[in-house]
């Protein structure tokens, strides 16, 4: 008995319908997902002319039975779904039974497959949806699908394809991302006989990241580790797709189960700043998706750690019970809907933020000085289909959150305080020469890079918590503090360091409603432009709550009577104009929360020690201590780095001592 069934109409109609094949990369995506669903452990993708001339996928998956192979090209023929109920908990990447017929109708397709249960395989040839040939063939196990001349019969579509290079980049980005989601599988991508990506099975995601991107990228990344959170009280939130709604009505009254969400992956240190979202990869239950909600969660995790116009590198894997995610939203299966969107949003945001705080990653000097292992060619190709589509539409807090933001829990910036480490005088002295690479931990196989070199394993992560036991040595240019630490040398930008300290202090006071203000001897009279006047009216309440006591004073003029205590009177006009300018620009549509942070950031910046200021040793020590006590000592509220670290190892290397 075959495995594939034709879905009954009543099920087929519930499936989000639409165009499946848009470009070569969508073909690769569908075929790759089929191979993964088929349990393949080795997947080879060959393309020619950016996939326009040829796409071939070879897998060692379960293959198809003869009858199934024929059925697979019927619409709504799938082995992955039976009835409406299954739509609620889709555990496979495919479920519609749409991909193969759609691809076959716009190309010349050759399917060669053999299931382990049969002794001979099947070869089927289809062109433009018409079956040309179907025969028995002597084949190895697994499936080979060859797609030639994509859109040969749809000239209109062909016209919309981009250059070969662009299409190839989309394909490469796609295969690369799926390879990251499956470190235990082999992926090989070639284009016209040149290898773009070749990775062999490894035990951990970290090793796969290393294989794909090389050691340099890896050193700029922080691993999330495995984080889990339970959802106990499911609030009725986003209505899932109709199918689910219907089903739930049937099943009404049933006890709500507890759902677990897990995330893992990597994210970049705040100083890695990308100009677009192309380096953000989100997988939900193994499916590469684009999702505004999660993008927003990521950008809020980096809020005030990175300029608003910059984006991190993120590789995020979110796993949950299949019922929690509705994948039947978009015909291309690249969007999902969460049943508890705001829970997921906050979980992702808080986890990343917590990890950012815990790891306090320190930027280091001259990455070029390190033995850098090269990334795979595919990782260098510039485009990503998934992020590109979102490029020009920055998610805003309002558009993303279905719920008013008041409902978002206020999250704490402070990492959970662990037990204080016991100081130990008898501990052995610090080793400066690197020990043998941690063996055993990483299972190695030969891959494109050969052995995982010892240098590629980043030194035990340097954390900015080390700031507290730094010894300031002096300043350079009366602007940067040079300090010696347990492991090497640090340079700290005194202005941004102080800015960070004050920012957190001001935010805390603001949150507690304990803003200290200083009244002025004479009110400061400021002239506003008509635009500034409008923004002033918009933000006047928040200004007041932040400590600026202002009053309208005639036509387009305001009188300032009191200001936050940290701001000197000499800076007052500058800071107010600056706040208005920011309110007019980047914070034009910002939420109240972002506006508040913006104002606090301006206060902190104006009140902070300037560069070109001589500091005595006591002041420097105070600054380092206060900095290490902050929640985010790695970057200033505007996203600039605060401290650079030059490890003993790097020093030794530079002096050719190791």
């Amino acid at each position, binding site marked *: 008995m075959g495995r594939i069934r034709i879905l009954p109409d009543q099920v087929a109609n519930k499936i989000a319908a639409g165009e499946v094949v848009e470009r070569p990369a969508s073909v690769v995506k569908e075929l790759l997902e089929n191979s993964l669903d088929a349990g393949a452990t080795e997947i080879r993708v060959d393309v020619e002319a950016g996939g326009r001339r040829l796409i071939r996928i070879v897998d060692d998956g379960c293959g198809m039975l003869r009858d199934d192979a024929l059925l697979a090209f019927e619409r709504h023929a799938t082995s992955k779904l039976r009835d409406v109920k299954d739509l609620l908990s889709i555990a496979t990447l495919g479920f519609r039974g749409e991909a193969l017929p759609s691809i076959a109708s716009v190309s010349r397709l050759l399917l060669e497959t053999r299931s382990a249960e049969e002794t001979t395989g099947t070869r089927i040839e289809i062109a433009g949806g018409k079956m040309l040939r179907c025969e028995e063939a002597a084949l190895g196990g697994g499936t080979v699908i060859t797609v030639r001349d994509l859109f040969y019969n749809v000239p209109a579509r062909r016209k919309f394809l981009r250059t070969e290079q662009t299409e190839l980049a989309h394909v490469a980005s796609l295969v690369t991302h799926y390879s990251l989601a499956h470190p235990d599988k082999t992926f090989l991508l070639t284009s016209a006989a040149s290898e773009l990506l070749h990775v062999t099975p490894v035990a951990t995601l970290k090793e796969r990241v290393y294989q794909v991107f090389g050691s340099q990228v890896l050193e700029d990344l922080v691993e999330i580790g495995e984080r889990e959170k339970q959802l106990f009280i499911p609030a009725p939130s986003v209505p899932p797709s109709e199918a689910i709604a219907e089903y739930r009505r049937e099943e009404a009254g049933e006890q709500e189960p507890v759902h677990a969400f897990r995330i893992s992956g990597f994210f970049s240190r705040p100083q890695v700043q990308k100009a677009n979202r192309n380096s953000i990869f989100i997988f939900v239950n193994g499916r590469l998706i684009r999702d505004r909600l999660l993008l927003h969660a990521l950008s809020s995790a980096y809020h005030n750690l990175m300029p608003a116009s910059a984006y991190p590198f993120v590789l995020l894997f979110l796993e949950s019970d299949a019922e929690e995610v509705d994948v039947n939203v978009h015909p291309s299966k690249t969007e999902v809907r969460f049943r508890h969107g705001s829970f997921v949003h906050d979980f992702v945001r808080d986890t990343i933020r917590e990890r950012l705080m815990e790891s306090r990653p320190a930027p280091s000097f001259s990455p070029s000085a390190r033995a850098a292992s090269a990334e795979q060619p595919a990782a260098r190709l510039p485009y990503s289909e998934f992020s590109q589509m979102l490029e020009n539409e920055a998610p805003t807090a309002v558009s993303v959150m279905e719920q008013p933001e008041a409902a978002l829990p206020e999250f704490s910036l402070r990492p959970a305080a662990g037990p204080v480490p016991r100081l130990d005088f008898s501990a052995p002295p610090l080793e400066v020469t690197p020990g043998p690479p941690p063996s055993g931990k990483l299972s190695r196989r030969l891959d494109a890079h050969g052995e995982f070199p010892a240098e590629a394993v980043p030194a035990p992560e340097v954390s900015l918590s080390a700031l507290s036991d730094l010894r300031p040595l002096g300043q350079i240019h009366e602007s940067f503090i040079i300090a010696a630490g347990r492991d090497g040398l640090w340079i700290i930008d005194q202005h941004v360091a102080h800015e960070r300290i*004050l920012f957190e*202090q001001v935010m*805390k006071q603001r949150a507690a409603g*304990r*803003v*200290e*203000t*200083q*009244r*002025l*001897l*004479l009110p*400061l009279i400021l002239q506003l432009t008509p635009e500034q006047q409008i923004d002033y009216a918009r933000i006047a309440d928040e200004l007041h709550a932040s400590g600026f006591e202002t009053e309208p004073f005639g036509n387009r003029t305001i009188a300032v009577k*009191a200001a936050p*205590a*940290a701001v*000197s*009177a*000499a*800076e*007052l*006009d*500058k800071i107010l104009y600056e706040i208005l300018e920011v309110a007019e620009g980047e914070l034009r549509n910002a939420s109240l929360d972002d506006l508040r942070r913006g104002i606090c950031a301006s206060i902190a910046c104006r*009140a902070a020690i300037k560069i070109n200021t001589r500091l005595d040793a006591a002041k420097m020590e105070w600054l380092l201590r206060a900095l290490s006590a902050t929640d985010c000592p790695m970057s200033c509220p505007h996203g600039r780095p605060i401290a650079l670290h030059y490890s003993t190892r790097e020093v030794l290397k530079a002096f050719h001592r190791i």
Partner: protein
Amino acid sequence: MEFTVSKSELVRELSLSQGVVEKKTTIPILSNVLLEAAEDRVTLTATDLELGIRCSCPARVKKEGSGTVPARKLLEFVRLLPEGDVNMKFLENHWASITCGRSRTRIAGMSRESFPELPATPESIAEIPVKTLASMITRTSFAISMEESRFTLNGALLVMRPEGLTMVATDGHRLAFVQATPEASGTVDQQFRALVPKKAMNELVKLADDAGPDEKALFSGDENHLFFQVGHRLLMTRKLTGNFPDYERVLPKDHALSAKLLKDEIKSAIERVAQFADERSHAIRVQFLSGEVRIFSSSVEMGESEESVLSEYTGPDLEIGFNAQYLLDFLRAIPQDHISFELKDQKSAGELRPAGEGITDQYRYVVMPMRI
């Protein structure tokens, strides 16, 4: 050029130039001191282009002339010489040779031509006792704002009026006002108003410290500069430009309430309590109660502190926030033992004044409250 001077006199004059020579070595000649020997004196000039100082001391001039040497190095070296006469002579290529006892030294100098020309001193318009000037400066300069902006000036206002010489300084949060009695103000030919930069005020105090008790400063000004001649020493400074705030508007006309306090008591109390105030805002709360004044501070991270001092106060209970540093600046600047703290309400300016017998001049210190 060649001359001989007493070591101790040379050291004394050179020390006065140290506050003026340029500290950053962006323009090398400005870290040099100009030495000019003429008749029976040697004159030392230093400048950073904002401020200039010219001092002189008696010398036996063998050959008139001039030259420049690094000011700091010269002072450091001469200071170590034994007491007695020092002979100085400029050689070729701007080298200066110094001979003293059995010591023979050569210092590399720079050409005199590259040293900036200082403005000529105009006719003086006032003679002010230097001690008056210095005491006014020490009671106002701390209130000068650190930065210069459209609304604050990095200097103080000096006004000569029939009521007496007045000096006012403010940073927008507080204002210090001193008005000397007409007798202590010296003699004037005309009324004037000038903005004196903070740096010049500091140097003036140094000149005053080194001057006799009755010495007068001859004051004059040209379009861009102010000049203070104290004996054989001349300090010149660029004028500050800008509008000084209308201080008369700020000085309270009347106060409803007044608390009399013992300066040392309130000062030490604030010093202790302020240890627990915010590191940057120095905010403390001051409670005026019948018969006492209480001070509070608290910080989330460090803890809190409270102290009470006795006071003659009869008004209603009142709590006002202040920057402790601002109050301490005043308390540390006055010699008197008693003060009066005058107030109206939580939002209006508070005023501190020295109290007690024998106060002749007017010293008023206005501090705006904080909201904590």
